[in-house]
């Protein structure tokens, strides 16, 4: 971030002290005020998101009291929309690292100004992930069983315990980085490198780990041939580095439109260049997987056959996966075209397309077909119920609510309108 003006209070400069017990609550209160203040469009957006969140909460209440039979899941397809979204959003969280690397490792000035957008996305995403896991639990009242020491934590055998550690760790890392940078800016001080730079470099490796561990949840299961592939972890990372930057590019354009945060065109260009590479890697991995599944024609390819072409007359996922592939290809073409990718509207369209394409690919294109056919080769299809959609949209709305509030506050703090002196 650019060097802030030295406007520490006179008391602090004189006494060389930091009255954190006074300043920090003031910071939190000012942030809360900044997050709840804005124009009519802001209020409309936040109220809309709040309403959707509450609809989701009500639906979750219904699910907890009636049991998970209100979802479309079954003993055959025992993970559905919730875990599909969880898997996708872990990728979004990891995608922010594509800003952190140029900003901090290669000291890209332009990226440094906006990298906080990616770090805040990581926070909102991890919170959404934790919520999706919670609503997927059959007994959320027994949440404490998974806490180490208090409960029984099956570490290191269970990959889920690794996921608990890496996801919560990543949340804390990004909360620290964003919190520290915003707080120091609020105080009008220069942030001290030793308090955040090591954490930033840790976050680069940690981001890779969160999605690798999440992939290992699936790729370690020998009984699920569609998932039991060495390519799964690389595929997860590749698609994360498509969906993450795509979402961030869209956010940057929106911020440029609605706020006075200076967003350099170079920062967007850097993300675009990263996207051009990762979209091709992702497409290559899809091709590699399709070849491996269909050339050998072994019994293990039944899930892939169901997904891409239908199996024994059941083909609910076929339109979804081919739409995803089409959107990926069109998006790639738009991003790679020298002429079209110069125009923001084509870039934005491409980002929207690839974002949804990856959402389908990771969700309906991976989690669901992993269960079809079942381990005894029965074909039981899955479609989410209204309750599942309500809860899913509710969590997305809550995440966007938090992200919008955080961005609003960040803009106010970075532009100096919220500081210890105001």
């Amino acid at each position, binding site marked *: 971030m650019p060097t802030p003006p030295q406007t520490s209070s006179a008391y602090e400069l004189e006494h060389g002290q930091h009255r954190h017990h006074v300043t920090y609550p003031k910071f939190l209160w000012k942030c809360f005020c900044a997050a709840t203040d804005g124009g009519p469009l802001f209020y409309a957006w936040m109220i809309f998101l709040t309403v959707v969140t509450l609809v989701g909460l009500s639906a979750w209440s*219904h699910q907890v009291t009636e049991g998970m039979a209100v979802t479309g899941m079954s003993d055959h397809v025992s993970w559905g929309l919730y875990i599909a979204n969880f898997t996708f959003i872990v990728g979004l969280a990891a995608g922010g690292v594509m800003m952190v690397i140029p900003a901090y490792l290669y000291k890209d000035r332009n990226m440094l100004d906006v990298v906080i957008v990616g770090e805040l996305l990581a926070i909102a995403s991890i919170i959404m992930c934790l919520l999706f896991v919670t609503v997927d*639990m*059959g007994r959320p009242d027994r949440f404490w*069983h998974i806490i180490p020491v208090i409960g029984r934590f099956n570490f290191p055998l269970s990959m889920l315990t690794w996921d608990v550690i890496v996801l919560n760790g990543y949340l804390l890392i990004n909360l620290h980085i964003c919190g520290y940078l915003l707080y120091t800016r609020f105080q009008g001080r220069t942030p001290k490198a030793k308090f955040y730079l090591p954490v930033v470099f840790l976050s680069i490796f940690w981001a890779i780990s969160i999605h690798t561990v999440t992939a290992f949840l699936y790729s370690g299961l020998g009984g699920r041939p569609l998932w039991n592939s060495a390519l799964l972890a690389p595929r997860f990372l590749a698609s994360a580095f498509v969906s993450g930057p795509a979402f961030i590019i869209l956010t940057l354009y929106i911020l440029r439109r609605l706020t006075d945060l200076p967003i350099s065109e170079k920062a967007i260009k850097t993300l675009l260049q990263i996207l051009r590479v990762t979209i091709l890697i992702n497409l290559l991995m899809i091709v590699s997987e399709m070849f491996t599944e269909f050339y050998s024609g072994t019994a293990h390819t039944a899930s892939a056959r169901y997904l891409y072409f239908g199996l024994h007359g059941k083909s609910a996922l076929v339109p979804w996966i081919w739409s995803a592939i089409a959107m990926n290809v069109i998006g790639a073409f738009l991003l790679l075209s020298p002429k079209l990718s110069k125009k923001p509207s084509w870039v934005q369209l491409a980002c929207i397309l690839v974002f949804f394409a990856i959402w389908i690919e990771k969700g309906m294109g991976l989690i669901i077909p992993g269960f079809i056919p079942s381990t*005894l080769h029965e074909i039981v299809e899955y479609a989410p119920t209204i309750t599942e959609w309500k809860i899913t949209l509710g969590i997305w709305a809550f995440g966007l609510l938090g992200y919008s509030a955080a961005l609003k506050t960040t803009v106010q703090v970075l532009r100096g309108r919220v500081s210890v002196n105001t």
Partner: protein
Amino acid sequence: MTTQNKKTEPRSITLPVLGQVTRRTALKAVGATLGIAAFGKAAQPMIENFASISPEEMFQKHYKELDESERDTVLKRLETQSKEEYGVDVTIRDLPPLPGVKYGYAINLSVCNGNGECMRACHEENNHDRDSNQSYIRVLEMQQGSMDMEKGTTTFTHAVPAENKFYMPVQCQQCDNPPCVHVCPVEATWTEKDGIVVVDYNWCIGCRYCEAACPYHARRFNWQTPNVPSEQINPDQGYLSNQIRPAGVMEKCTFCLHRVRDGRLPACLEACPTGARVFGNLLDPDSEIRWVLKNKRVFLLKEDLGTQPNFFYYFDR
């Protein structure tokens, strides 16, 4: 503030107690109140549900951490709950594994004719949900000449045995290298000394990772509270086996633990009219199961996955 508000002074109104308040702040306060009320309304059913769970149940320790008196307290509490909910006197026992025993189960596929009595017996013995006609056993009708389950089916309603078919019941294989045990994040499932893989229904958090991991479709989830009419409840229950499970937890075949640790046989074996099933102690060299393993050509389901099942299949010829 942004350039939205053109007036130099925000409009204010005078409220009792609070005095001068800007219209914006007043609106925000109303909004916040409405929001909190809506939040309370939305969360109410869930909060009521959580409040109905007794503290003893909420904070019950893992099965392995309970000492004998704590275990007795838990069993009594569950028996009382059963009496309150169903009006039936049940006995829930926690039988320890018999020493020097490791259970093995074998099915003679030349004899099994797909009649499905084993499925029905399991359904009744283990207090399964009636609405879904649940059972731990699934009988596959397989194509003669192929072991490929892709060519098999579990949904057949014609008379059995059909021409050119053979029948293969599949249930929990009680693996020695069980993927379900490895993946459970809270150790709610583990292998007992006699080889049976069990679930602590009061510890399971319902994440269903074990269901994803099992290659044999052996695990079942309670998508809702099971519906078992009082007069059909089997009152002879085991804590780790056929006590009536609550909603939101996993369950599986336990080789009728409450029977076999008492010296009896699993319900499925007793119900089988063709005599296709063989059960016994793998550590006893004189047992029938050991004879089968020695004299019959035995195979394991999905052996290449390395799960090391204790469930064996064989043909007579």
